[in-house]
């Protein structure tokens, strides 16, 4: 009786996961770097305004609050991209397993 080669499947799933994650990382990295740099520059800009008495403490606080909200949105985007990557890795793994089962046992899974 034909059997499933687990080792072969593991290698295929690992390769697939690596490809997906590398591709996501390449698109995600410049975005994250840009946003974190921007946040740092904004904070530095506001600190300089306060040091030069262009703004008072209350205004600094209100303007930093906007920075915080913006950073939260960036982090939510990053969280979402991470979930998309995980979703793609899981579904690719299921597809690989389903194909292997179909080849060996001729059972089509409802994927």
């Amino acid at each position: 009786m034909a059997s499933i080669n687990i080792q072969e499947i593991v290698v295929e799933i690992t390769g697939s996961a690596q490809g997906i994650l590398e591709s996501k990382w390449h698109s995600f990295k410049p975005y994250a770097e840009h946003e974190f740099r921007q946040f740092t520059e904004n904070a530095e800009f506001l600190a300089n305004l306060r040091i030069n008495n262009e703004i008072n403490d209350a205004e600094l606080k209100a303007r930093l609050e906007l920075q915080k909200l913006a950073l939260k949105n960036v982090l939510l985007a990053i969280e979402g991209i991470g979930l998309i990557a995980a979703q793609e890795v899981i579904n690719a793994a299921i597809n690989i397993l389903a194909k292997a089962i179909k080849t060996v046992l001729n059972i089509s899974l409802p994927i």
Partner: protein
Amino acid sequence: MKKICLLIIILFSFSCKVVLITGYDEVLDNSVTKMKRDFNLHFIKLVRTLQDDDPNNQHINNFEEYYDNLQADLICVNDRTKFLEGKSAQVKKQIQNLDSIMIGFMLLHKQGFKDSRMDDHRSERNAINSSFDAVIKLQEELKSTGKTTEKQ
């Protein structure tokens, strides 16, 4: 043989593609992109009034039309998120944050922006654009995954 049976049971238990996140909405995507453009146009006009010799032309009353449209847009995008499926928490939170940041900016303007050569409010422009970009970026990623909004 036991391993194969186990694999089949696991795969049948999934029965369909795994969905961890949803939330792509074309209307939302387009609305936020338009809001970003409108904000930047508004900001260019506003900064011009902050860097001239007239200390009064930046008063919020002179920009009422923009803020009225902005609030209408925020109501529309907030309402739109109500129709998103269950696994769209990140998108919903992003829109709530976007609402808070835009209202926060409007309140800052209401309190008064003074003329200044040094303070061109680039920190607010950057933060608001980052906030718009974060929504647009996630929408793009959700769109490119294609089937993430399919009902499972």
